[in-house]
C-alpha cells in the first residue's frame, strides 16, 4: 500500500519581486535594477518525508520555519516549485478557520458554499447540514448574514464545517484554541475523534502536549529545512532545548538539513 502522504525533495519558492503590492511602477523600477538583491526565497527546501496509513505526524518548529507553508502544499493550495508530493485519499484541511466566509450570506448559505469549495458532494453536504448547525450552536442565527456574527460564532461555524467531513488525511494547523472554554473542550474532543477515524494526520502546533499525546512521529522544521525527525519525545526535546536558547537571546547553531534518502 502506498503511504498516505509521500513528499520528496519538496521546495517552495517565493518570488520576492512578485508581491501583492506589485504595481506597474514597482515593476519598472525592478526591471531597471535587475540583478540586485535576492530575487527569491525558499520557504521550504529539500523536505522529504512520508506518512503511512495510521500514523500521525507532528510538524514543529519556530515561527517562520515553513510549517504552515508545508500544510498549504499538502492541502494542494500551493504547488511545489521543486520535488513531488503525493497524497492518497480525501484531504480535509483545518487551516485558518472561517476566514473565507462570504459575510453577506447567511450561515446556511456559507455551509453549502464552503462544501462546494471543498469539492464535497451536494447531497452529502445537505445531509450533514443539521449536524454542522447543531455543533456550531448558532441557533436561529444560522439564517442571518455572517456579518452579524461575533468572532467566536464565526470560528465555531468554521470549525464545525471543516470537521464535518470524514477525511482520509487530516491536516490540522493550530485549530485547538477557538471559542470559549465550553467550545474548546467540545472541539478538542471532536479533533480527537477525527484523529481516531482518519487514516493519517499531519498536525502543526506550538502546543507540545498535543505532539506528545497524539503523534507517533515528529519532524522539526527550521528555516525551511527538515532538521530532525523521528520519535516525538526526542524531537520535542531538541526543539525545546533550541527554543530555550533563543528565548535567552542566544542563537543556536543552524542544524544541517536532513538528507532525504536517509529518512525512514
Amino acid at each position, binding site marked *: 500500500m502506498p503511504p498516505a502522504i509521500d513528499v520528496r525533495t519538496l521546495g517552495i519558492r517565493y518570488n520576492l519581486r*512578485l*508581491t501583492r503590492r506589485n504595481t506597474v511602477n514597482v515593476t519598472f523600477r525592478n526591471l531597471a535594477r535587475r540583478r540586485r538583491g535576492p530575487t527569491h526565497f525558499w520557504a521550504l527546501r529539500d523536505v522529504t518525508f512520508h506518512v503511512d496509513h495510521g500514523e500521525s505526524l507532528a510538524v514543529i518548529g519556530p515561527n517562520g520555519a515553513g510549517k504552515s507553508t508545508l500544510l498549504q502544499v499538502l*492541502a494542494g493550495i500551493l504547488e511545489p516549485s521543486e520535488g513531488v508530493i503525493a497524497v492518497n485519499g480525501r484531504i480535509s484541511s483545518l487551516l485558518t478557520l472561517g476566514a473565507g466566509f*462570504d459575510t453577506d*450570506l447567511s450561515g446556511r448559505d456559507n455551509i453549502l458554499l464552503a462544501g462546494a469549495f471543498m469539492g464535497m458532494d451536494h447531497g452529502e453536504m445537505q445531509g450533514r447540514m443539521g449536524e454542522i448547525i447543531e455543533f456550531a450552536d448558532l441557533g436561529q442565527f444560522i439564517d442571518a448574514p455572517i456579518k452579524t456574527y461575533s468572532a467566536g460564532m464565526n470560528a465555531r461555524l468554521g470549525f464545525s464545517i471543516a470537521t464535518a467531513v470524514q477525511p482520509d488525511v487530516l491536516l490540522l494547523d493550530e485549530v485547538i484554541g477557538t471559542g470559549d472554554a465550553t467550545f474548546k473542550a467540545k472541539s478538542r474532543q471532536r479533533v480527537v475523534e477525527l484523529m481516531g477515524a482518519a487514516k493519517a494526520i499531519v498536525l502543526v502546533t506550538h502546543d507540545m502536549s498535543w505532539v506528545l499525546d497524539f503523534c507517533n512521529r515528529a519532524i522539526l522544521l527550521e528555516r525551511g529545512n527538515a532538521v530532525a525527525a523521528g520519535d516525538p519525545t526526542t524531537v520535542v526535546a531538541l526543539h525545546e532545548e533550541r527554543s530555550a536558547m533563543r528565548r535567552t537571546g542566544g542563537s543556536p547553531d543552524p542544524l544541517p538539513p536532513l538528507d532525504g534518502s536517509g529518512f525512514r
Partner: protein
Amino acid sequence: MASQTDAVRATYRMARPGPLATLKGTVRDVLSRRRLIQYLVRADLKKHGADTLLGNVWWILDPLLTMLVYVILIAIILRSNREAYPLFIFCAILPWKWFSSTIGAAVTGITTRELIIKQVNFPKIVLPIAITAGGVVSFIFGLVPLLAMLVFFYPSHVSVWLLALPIVAAVQLVLTLALAIIVSALTVFYRDIGNLAGHLLRLWFYLSPALYGTDQLDKLASEHPSLFSIYELNPFAAIFESYRNLIYYGQAPTWNLLGLVVLESLVLLVVSVLVFRRLEPSFAKIL
C-alpha cells in the same frame, strides 16, 4: 555534498502538462465543479439588490435609466433626428451593460476571494466563470424592458429576427468569458488594472457604435478607409450592429462580421484559459 543534493532534486521533478492537456483538464475541472459555480451565481444574485429598497427591480431599472440619460443628452440636447432613438441605443446599452458589469466584477473576482484561495484548493477558474454566468442572468432580466418597449412603443420594429438574439448573445458570451478570465488573473499581479478598467471600458464604449450607427461613419470610411477597417476589427462594432439589425432594423445580422468575432473570441478564450492556468499556481503566494 551539494552536487549530490542537486542530483536528488533532479530525480523528482513535476512535469508541466502541455496546452492541450491543460485545456482538457480545465474543462474537466469546471464540469466537476458545476455545483460550486451554481452556488456562486446564486450567492451573487442574492446579494445583488438584497440591501436596496427596490431589490432586483434594479436589474430592469438600471439599463432603462442609462438609456434615459443618453436619450436626454443626444435626442434632446444634441437633437438627433433618428427615428425611435431610444430603441436604437437600447439595442447597444443592454448588451454593453452586461459586458461592462461582468468585466468590472471579474477584475476583482480573484482578489476578493483571497481568503478562501489560501484555505482551500479548488479550480480558481470557476470564479470568473461564475461571474460571467451571473451576468447572463441579469442580461436576461434586462431583456424584459427591451421587449416591453418593442411591443408597446415600437410594434413596427418587431420581426422574426428577434428569435436570433440568442445567437448574437452567445457570441458575446464567448468574448466576455474570455476577457473575464484573463482580466481576473492579471489583476492578481497588477492591481492597477482595477483602476484602469473603468476608463478603458468607457473608451471602448464610445469607440463602438453604441450611441451612433456605423452608417454615421461614412466620412471616416471614405476619407480613411484603413482607419475604418481597424474600426471594424473592434468586436463590439459587429456585435452592436448585429443586435441592432435584429431588434431595430428587423433584418439578418452581417454574418461574416459576426463569424469573425466568433473566431477572435474563441482564440482569445483558449489563450485566456492557458494564461490563467499558467498563473493560477502563484495566486495563493501573491494574494
